[in-house]
C-alpha cells in the first residue's frame, strides 16, 4: 500500500464518520468532529503564522533592522512595530491585573472596521444598487423590458418601505410594505431554489469519491 491508497482510505473513513451524524450523534462522529476541530485549528494556526505573522510583521521588521545595522538608517518599516504593540497588548489578557489594556487593541480594531465599512457599504450596497434601479418604466415598443423594469422599480421601492422603522405599517404605507414583503419572499425562494443545484453538486462529489476513488465501483 502506498501513501496515496492509505490517504484515500483515511479520507473515506472520515467522510463516513461525518455522514454518520445524519442518523444520530455517535462516537464515530465525535471522533471525526474532534479530529476536524484539532486539525483545522492547527491548519489555521500554521496559515496565520506563515502568511500573516511572517510577511506582515517579521519580514517588515527584519527589513528595518537590516537597514539600521547595515546602512545606519531608520526606515519607515519600523511603523509595523505599532501593530506588534497592539498585538502584545492583546496577549496581556493572559495577565489578569493588566488585562484591560487589551481593550486598546479592540478599540483600534473596532474603529478601523467601522470607518472602512461605512464608506464601502454606502458605495457598493447603497449607491450602486440605487443607480441600478433607476430605469425607464416604459420602453417604447418593448413590452417585456417595460414590464421587467416596472417589476424592478416597484419591487425595490416597496421592499425598502418594509424596512422603515419609525413609521407604522398602516394604510397605503402598510400596503406597500406588504408588497415589499412579497418581493423579499420571492427573493428568498428563488435564491434557495437556485442554490440547491450547487449543494447537490457537493454531495455528488463526495459520493463519487466514495464509489469511484475509494471502492472503485464506478469509473
Amino acid at each position, binding site marked *: 500500500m502506498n501513501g496515496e491508497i492509505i490517504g484515500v482510505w483515511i479520507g473515506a473513513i472520515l467522510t463516513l464518520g461525518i455522514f454518520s451524524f445524519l442518523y444520530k450523534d455517535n462516537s464515530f462522529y465525535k*471522533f471525526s468532529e474532534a479530529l476536524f476541530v484539532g486539525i483545522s485549528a492547527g491548519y489555521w494556526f500554521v496559515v496565520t503564522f506563515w502568511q500573516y505573522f511572517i510577511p*506582515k510583521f517579521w519580514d517588515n521588521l527584519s527589513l528595518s533592522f537590516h537597514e539600521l545595522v547595515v546602512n545606519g538608517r531608520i526606515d519607515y518599516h519600523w511603523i509595523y512595530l505599532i*501593530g506588534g504593540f*497592539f498585538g502584545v497588548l492583546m496577549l496581556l489578557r493572559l495577565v489578569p491585573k493588566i488585562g484591560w489594556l487589551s481593550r486598546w487593541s479592540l*478599540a483600534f480594531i473596532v474603529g478601523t472596521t467601522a*470607518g472602512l465599512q461605512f464608506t464601502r457599504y454606502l458605495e457598493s450596497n447603497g449607491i450602486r444598487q440605487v443607480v441600478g434601479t433607476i430605469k425607464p418604466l416604459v420602453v417604447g415598443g418593448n413590452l417585456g423590458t417595460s414590464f421587467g423594469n416596472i417589476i424592478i422599480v416597484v419591487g425595490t421601492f416597496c*421592499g425598502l418601505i418594509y424596512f422603515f422603522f419609525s413609521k407604522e405599517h398602516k394604510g397605503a404605507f402598510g400596503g406597500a410594505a406588504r408588497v415589499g414583503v412579497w418581493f423579499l419572499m*420571492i427573493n428568498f425562494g*428563488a435564491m*434557495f431554489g437556485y442554490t440547491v443545484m450547487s449543494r447537490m453538486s457537493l454531495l455528488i462529489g463526495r459520493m463519487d469519491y466514495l464509489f469511484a476513488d475509494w471502492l472503485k465501483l464506478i469509473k
Partner: protein
Amino acid sequence: MRREVPLVLTAMVGITMIIAHFIPPFNILKDLFEDWFFIIAAFAIYLGISNLILVNGDKIYKKQKGWPFGLVVILGFLVMTVIGLFFSGGTSFQDPGTPFYYLYMNVYYPLSATMFALLAFFVASASYRAFRARNVEATMLLLAAFILMVGRVPIGYWFSDWLGDALGKLADWIMDFPQTAGQRAIMIGIALGVVSSALRVILGLERTYTSGE
C-alpha cells in the same frame, strides 16, 4: 485611562478611515491599518489556541465525559502545527508533496468537503418543512423556490419542452427581475444599517465592548 483611551482611539481611527476614502494621500494609512489588523489577529490567535488546549486539557485531566475526544483535539492540533511549522519547508508549506499537503488533502479536505456536502441533505429537509402554502407570503416563497428548482435542471426541460422550455425561461425571468428587486431592497437597507451602526460605534454610543470598569 481605562475608559477614555479606547473611546478616543475608536473615534480617531474610525474617522481617519472614512476620510481616507476621500483624501488619496490618506490611503497609505488605510493599508497600514489593515496590515496592523492582521498582525493583531496573528498575535491574538495564541489566546484562542491556549483556550482550546485549556478547555480540552481540563476535560482530560478531570476525566469528564468524552475526555478521549478532547485528547483527539489536542493531538490533531499538535500534529498539524508541528508538521506545518517545522517539517513542510517553511513558507512553501502548502506545496504538493509536503507532509502538510498530505494531511490537508487526506484528512482536512475530506472532512471539510463532507461537512459542506451535508447541505444537500439539509436543503431537502428544510424545503420539505418550510415550503408550505400557509399564507400568501409563504406561497410566494414556495412557488419561487419550486420554479427555480425545476427550471434549472433537465426535468424542467422535459416537462416544458413543448412550450419552448417555458419553465427554464420563467426561472431565468424570476432571477433577473423580482429576485433582483427584493435583493436590492435588502442590500440598500443593509448599507444604511452599516452606516448607522458604524456611526454609533465611532461616536461611542454603542460601546459595550470597550467600556468595562
